[in-house]
């Protein structure tokens, strides 16, 4: 936690901040989603309240908060109320473990711009996000509704199946950087792209940044695809197949509880995008610009080193969020362009296509790394 009181306080504030960031990102995303979908479908979408309908989110929030508080008669109360909260937890915990910016050096303290730095971050994130299943199951069982239960079973099965592909696709990255620590991974992705082979350096690609995507294209594709499945988004949102299951596991939920589920889903999107950015796009680093250059450039405006590092941190934070935003937009775009899978297609894709390819990617990476370090 920390050694001195200031540090402890700052860290606690950080935790709260991260949580708020996630929660506040959700209305923005909702608005973005609605407007975006509207434009994709050649509509206007919400545009009454405020400029560009930006105030729409507030209205939504108010509506959610003041809806009637009810629970189905057949429901198991405890589980029914526990589920939305549980849905919120994994995304938050995972998101808090991802570094969002360069560490800030303030006097003798070093503050990482993340909820808490964990040396085995990847494992932690995987572990926490694997708990997301419980929310679904609890909701499905708790609301005492067969549609909800079916949706929950389908969703949880899907999540479990795709966790395999997800984890395996990261294994390539772990092999590549030899660590579970996000910060180390991000550090390793700085500078130009220089490939090593049998001790020779291949530099003709060095106009590219040294990002993981150039080492792990297949891994990235698989990870991205299974990230969709993990966060129950189209084309993988079988849990809420409106046609056959009304709305899946949260059919009985309304009002604020529903909102919590929303936050959980969008939180998953956030986490996935952040992970992709971290693994494959160099995290908070700026392409073609090294940290040293950045600090030097900032130093041309400001003198005091504390402020310099703080500003640098904020800039990198902005960069990180830009990257995350790109992927968030891709999420939304995909949702409104692709149709839904059928369940057996989904399972076949997960088990017979993605899993083998992820395995192949792992083995390939291992061999290539072995040969690369031969020299």
């Amino acid at each position, binding site marked *: 936690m920390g050694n001195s009181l200031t540090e402890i306080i700052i860290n606690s504030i950080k935790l709260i901040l991260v949580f708020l960031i996630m929660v506040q990102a959700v209305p923005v995303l909702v608005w973005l989603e609605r407007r975006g979908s509207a434009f994709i479908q050649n509509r206007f979408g919400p545009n009454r309240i405020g400029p560009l309908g930006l105030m729409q989110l507030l209205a939504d929030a108010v509506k959610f908060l003041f809806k009637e508080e009810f629970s189905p008669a057949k429901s198991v109360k405890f589980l029914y109320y526990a589920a939305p909260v549980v849905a919120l937890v994994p995304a938050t915990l995972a998101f808090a473990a991802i570094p969002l910016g360069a560490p800030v050096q303030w006097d003798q303290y070093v503050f990482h711009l993340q909820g808490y730095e964990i040396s*085995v971050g990847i494992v932690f994130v995987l*572990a926490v996000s*694997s*708990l997301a299943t419980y929310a679904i199951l*609890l909701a499905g069982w708790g609301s005492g509704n067969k549609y909800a*239960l079916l949706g929950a079973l389908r969703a*949880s099965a899907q999540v479990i199946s795709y966790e395999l592909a997800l984890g395996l696709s990261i294994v390539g990255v772990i092999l590549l950087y030899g660590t*579970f620590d996000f910060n180390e991974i991000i550090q390793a992705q700085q500078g130009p792209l220089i490939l090593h082979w049998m001790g020779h350096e291949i530099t003709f690609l060095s106009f590219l940044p040294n990002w993981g995507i150039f080492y792990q294209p297949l891994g990235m594709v698989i990870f991205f695809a299974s990230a969709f499945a993990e966060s129950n988004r189209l084309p993988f949102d079988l849990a809420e197949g409106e046609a056959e299951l009304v709305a899946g596991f949260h059919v009985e939920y309304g009002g604020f509880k529903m909102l919590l589920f929303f936050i959980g889903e969008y939180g998953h999107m956030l986490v996935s995008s952040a992970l992709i950015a971290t693994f494959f796009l160099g995290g908070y680093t700026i392409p073609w610009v090294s940290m040293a250059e950045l600090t030097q450039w900032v130093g041309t405006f400001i003198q005091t080193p504390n402020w310099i590092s703080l500003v640098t941190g904020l800039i990198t934070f902005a960069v990180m969020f830009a990257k995350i935003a790109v992927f968030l937009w891709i999420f939304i775009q995909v949702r409104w362009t692709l149709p839904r899978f059928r369940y*057996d297609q989904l399972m076949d894709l997960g088990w017979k296509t993605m899993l083998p390819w992820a395995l192949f990617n792992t083995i390939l990476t291992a061999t290539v790394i072995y040969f690369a370090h031969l020299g």
Partner: protein
Amino acid sequence: MITDVFLFWFLAIVTLAAGITVVTVTNPIYSALALAMTMIGVSALFVTLGAYFLAGVQIIVYAGAVTVLFVMVVMLFDLKYEVVAFSRGKVSGALKLASGATLGGLLIGSIFLTVNGVTKAVSVGTSEKAGDTTKELSRLLFTKYVFGFEALGVLLLIIAVGAVALARSKGGTHAEH
């Protein structure tokens, strides 16, 4: 200092409470959830022992996969509260409880009898940088225990095939025709 003592006791109590719930609650759903809680508690205890990686794996494997399986099975079976949750028979039940209690007592007694020797013998801790233990772990796993590792791989393969063969779907989208 204090935080760690507090942490241990807190986690211990949570874990034990969850464990007791697993055994005593009559509704299998609740015992499954309690089991998940126990797993999480145990993994937190792993963290206090500096085994970060294992803690993560513990959650992934147990809480994320095994217990979810349990929950799903229970939900599929749709088991209501059971009439006879515990095995009948006064004598046998008493005998079972007694044997359990004595076993616990014996275990704890033996621990107290022997543990001091152990700690006094080697009282060096593992290196605290978790990355190190993880790397160390993997190195050991692929050098000293590589045979066991391979054997486990084979075992898992067999298990997968066996489980599929046991509970293969009759009817539905994946039925074999």
